């Protein structure tokens, strides 16, 4: 008889795990899949295009209930898990307990809500799931509706752009001096800001929020420390995420910032695994999809008797705002031993920054033309020595492997 595997959470990492187990090791496990959201797995990254109206929900579904059922997975969707009994090896949901031989906790993360007065007002939301997306779409239906987005990071800007695309007057309020400061330097941040401003989005950087003002229980405005009031019908907080670790803590599983896992995604308790945004590995948290998929692959292998270990790789991000192509990858903080190759093209709206350390590409940021981003990402991941191609590195794969110019004809104005 197959072992019983219970998975809490049907996010993208869990979806990948079930897919691996179902397709490559069908029958190895008898799987029960809990999901607090009343639906199967969808590509959360693509919520922004849904918000902006460029895609429909149907287009971003990866594994719906029908798919899971067809693959023999027992779906407990829309059912909140209330507890884990690691001694009895059961998981209890609203509709009763399920025993497990092995348990995967993939509870994901929750948006961080700034503890501002008025945060509970109607119309104050985070940007995390389909419900939030629908709420935002609904808010945008009111003519002349205004929105404030707190947070000028990836998610906040995608929310802002999506709302603007739906006709809202949007203001982005950002604490730091320039947008996306974790990915971009000032110059690129400036270009991004200009592009957003060009599409009607107001951007306020270096702004501290003081209070959310309401009227009849509904948000009316955001008050800033400097006294400015930004009227709004909708206030979206997009200032970061926190791993959902409540269930694990209650079950006595070791939790630091996230559920602590080893290279095989094991927690400190036998047969209990962590997966996805809720885990902490080697002191790091994960918010981007690529390492989550890696974790899922490792875990699938491990659960079916294979050898695998999770090792975080360099990650890349892309801003999904149509017309604001932005890509960043690797580590692009400045440093003593670091050298930079930059392109500034404010008129053309192009910016590129390559960060090198010991002749290796360790980070890349591009804004505008991001066509070659995958090539750079591969270079960062491979850690190849780029000194021989440094002169033309910025120009990407079209210039890779070109023979060096000859001294006469290529390095002076003499024909040899």
């Amino acid at each position, binding site marked *: 008889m197959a072992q019983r595997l219970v998975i809490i959470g049907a996010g993208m990492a869990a979806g990948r795990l079930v897919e691996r187990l179902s397709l490559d090791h069908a029958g190895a496990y008898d799987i029960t899949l809990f999901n607090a959201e009343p639906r199967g797995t969808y590509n959360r990254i693509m919520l922004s295009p849904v918000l902006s109206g460029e895609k429909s929900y149907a287009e971003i579904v990866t594994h719906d209930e029908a798919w899971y059922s067809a693959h023999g997975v027992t779906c407990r969707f829309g059912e909140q898990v209330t507890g884990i009994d690691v001694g009895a090896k059961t998981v209890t949901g609203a509709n009763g307990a399920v025993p497990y031989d092995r348990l995967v906790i993939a509870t994901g993360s929750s948006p961080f809500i700034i503890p501002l007065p008025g945060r509970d007002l109607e119309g104050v939301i985070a940007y995390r799931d389909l419900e939030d997306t629908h709420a935002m779409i609904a808010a945008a239906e009111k003519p002349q509706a205004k929105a404030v987005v707190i947070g000028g990071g990836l998610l906040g800007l995608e929310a802002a752009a999506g709302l603007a695309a739906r006709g809202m007057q949007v203001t982005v309020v950002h604490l730091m001096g320039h947008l996306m400061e974790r990915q971009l330097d000032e110059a690129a941040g400036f270009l991004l800001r200009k592009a957003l401003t060009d599409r009607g989005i107001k951007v306020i950087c270096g702004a501290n929020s003081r209070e959310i003002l309401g009227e009849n229980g509904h948000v009316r405005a955001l008050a800033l420390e400097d006294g400015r009031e930004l009227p709004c019908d909708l206030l979206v907080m997009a200032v970061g995420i926190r791993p959902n670790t409540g269930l694990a803590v209650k079950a006595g599983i070791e939790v630091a910032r996230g559920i602590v896992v080893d290279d095989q995604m094991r927690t400190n308790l036998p047969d209990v695994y962590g997966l996805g945004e809720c885990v902490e590995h080697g002191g790091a948290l994960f918010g981007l999809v690529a390492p989550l998929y890696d974790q899922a692959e490792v875990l699938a292998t491990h659960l079916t008797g294979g050898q695998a270990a999770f090792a975080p790789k360099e990650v890349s991000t892309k801003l999904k705002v149509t017309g604001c192509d932005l890509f960043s990858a690797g580590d692009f903080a400045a440093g003593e031993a670091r*050298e*930079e*190759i*930059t*392109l*500034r*093209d*404010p*008129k*053309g709206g*192009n910016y590129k920054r390559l960060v*090198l350390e010991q002749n290796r590409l360790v980070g890349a940021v591009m804004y505008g*033309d991001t066509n070659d981003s995958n090539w750079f990402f591969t270079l960062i991941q491979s850690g190849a020595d780029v000194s021989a191609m*440094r*002169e*033309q590195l*910025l*120009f990407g*794969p*079209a*210039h*890779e492997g*070109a023979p*060096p*110019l000859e*001294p*006469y*004809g*290529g*390095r*002076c*104005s*003499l*024909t*040899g």
Partner: protein
Amino acid sequence: MAGKTSQNRAKITCTTCPYCGVGCGVLAGQDGSIKGDPDHPANFGRLCSKGSALGETVDLEGRLLHPVVHGKQADWDSTLDLVAGQFSRAIREHGPDSVAFYVSGQLLTEDYYVANKLMKGYIGSANIDTNSRLCMASSVAGHKRAFGTDTVPGTYEDLDEADLVVLTGSNLAWCHPVLYQRLVAAKQARPEMRVVNIDPRRTATCDIADLHLAIAPDGDAALFNALLAEIARRGAQDEAYVDAHVNGFEAAVEAARASDPALSGLSQDEITAFCEMWIDTPKVVTVYSQGVNQSVCGTDKVNAILNCHLATGRIGRAGMGPFSVTGQPNAMGGREVGGLANMLGWHLDIENADHRAAVQQAWDSPTMCTQAGLKAVDLFDACASGKIKALWIISTNPAVSLPDAGKVAEAIKTVPFTVVTDIMARTDTGDLADVLLPATGWGEKSGTVTNSERRISRQRPFMQAPGSARPDWKILCDVAARMGWADAFDYAGPADVFREYAALSALGTQFGRDFDISGLGDLSEAEYDALAPVQWPVKWPVRKGEPSGGRFFAKGGFYHADGRAKMLPITAPQVAAAPADYPFVLNSGRVRDHWHTMTRTGKSARLSQHLAEPFAQIHPEDAFALGVREAGLVTLTSPYGTATLRALITSKVARGEIFVPMHWTAQFAPSGLVNPLIGPAVDPVSGQPATKGGAVRAEAFGAGWYAFIAARGAIDCKRPYVAKARTTTGWQAEIAGFKTPKDWEQELRDITGLSAADATVIEDSASGIARIALTDADGTIAALLFAAPDPVAVARAFAVSLIGTQTPAFEALAGRPGADRPDPGAVVCSCFNVGVNTLKSAIAEGANTVDALGAKTCAGTNCGSCKPELAALLANQLSKVAAE
């Protein structure tokens, strides 16, 4: 006498090329089209790269369009009054020898004649010398010593008919490309014809040579002495000819025997092979040019060559003879009108009182010079020492072209009153003048020139004179009139001048001279206008069917008093040990696509791309020892000056020798002038400067940065190294310096004046790399800069091609095409703009001959000047393939 005129052919004008002494016929269309004249006997339709691009050089950019007095625009009348007044005052206060003219082999004969008449017969001084001094004076002196006159005995047909052509001191392929192509064609038609190229460098001319003799600098006299000694040893001399027509045989042979052949720098085997070839081939033509002339022993070298031809009687017969090829379009015309300070017109002698008297009588002139005037170098020395109070420089650029050019520039500044006549507003010399007078240029002026084979051709106008520019003869006559000699200079036009000059050539024949064009002395205006190319002598009266021209001296008839030629005893110069401080021998010369100081060729983008900056050819081992890298910069220093140039590292020059082209001026490359390095040493007989015999030391320039700039507009930049050139899209510059500019973007804005353009900037500060694009509001690229700590890697032709396009700035800053777009590479064929990479691809695809390359890429199929390079590229690429 009937020929083609502009009237006979709609909108096509038959004229003559203004560049070298080959004197090619050109068909110029009013639409700017340029073609070789198929009926002109100098070129039979061929043109070289320079001639083919003439249409690109007649624009008005940079032209001097009105008189300028002390930097301010002035009118003709007051300016001519000023000039005449200043010259008259100097003559009145300091005598006739206190004034001087320095003129040019680019003047037309009519201009030249009027200048000489004014100076020698009216001012009464012989202080008129010409830039032909720098080019031909040693040949003139050698001819006169041997023949009694300055006579070129042969014709171009001799090159077709010879069985052996010896080229010595002549990079014919680049400097006289049409003659070279003629030789190539002759050799193709008669493969048994052989060619020997004698040159310290392995030049493009070696492509045709069966034997290249890499002679030591100034080793020619030793080699031709060895040849004469061998002729005598073998008894190969033409006893009958020598007995009948030649003096000095014994003494010359004795001197030749005493001469050490090793001074030629050649091995005994090489000398033997050369002597055998020469002696065993009766139909031998020895072509010589500036490599022989521009030397402290140039005249001796000429006579060493002439000795061999005189001893064997190989002169003046089909396919035989010595052949001096001149560098300027009218060097020969200048010699005929007495353009040099030590001669009178019509090949008469200034030292001969009878000649002087006859000329004075003919001119009916108030005075006459009594002795030779100051030759070029002496003339500017006299300027420096304050003896010259008024100087008139016409159509030449001595601040660049004379040796010790820096001192010459200072000397010009010393002269209280300097007039410069030119077609260009800015030249290095014009910048020093008190008065600038605008002359008409090629395509605008009317007159005659004489080429290297004594053929007189018309230069005809096909364009209006721009601004208030006037012909040189007219300017000279106007000044002469204001000096009080209106009647003697009252010419109605160039035909009027020509008639007087031609008719008076009877004077020459009266004294038994060679030069005779009296048959042309009564040409009507229409006949002058229609004058077909004609070789002198043209005796009077012209009889129908009686041929003019022809060869001299087959049956003797020399112009010394006894009618015999003179062989001279020649002592080959000892090679002085190189001074320790200046260990390199500095050679100078022309490149394929430029001419003189680039005032004309520098306007053509096509001509400017082949070698777009001044350079120093240096042997790889020397470069290695000096730490000079490929495409790096090298600084040359002599006791006279310094120059910084691109190092062209090549084994085509011998160790210890450096070659630098002569063309670059402060207008294009302020650090790239060769003549400031050259000492003022001259040939003691001819006074010709030894511009191929400098001594320098060389050092790596030690640049901290290099940059390449392409821009739509002018480039104005002061940096330790700057070399500008025209491009098809505007201008380009190679620059370099020591301390890296802090702000490259501002630097490019300052250099191009594009202060408001949008900038796209790439920086790799750690590597010292910066690339900037400046664009217009609509994204059109206006300027590109590429900077690096090493000689900067940019596909120049590609970068240049992007100027004026809306290529995305980032793409442009790649500096070379991506994988999807081929880079044509550096231009090899100027006519069709074919790059080296295009040629390499064609070779890889199977084009394995020069003709096949031409069929595939068009390269070499117009002027053919690049064919030697195509052949070299083929040899190189095919050997690579074979090795793989």
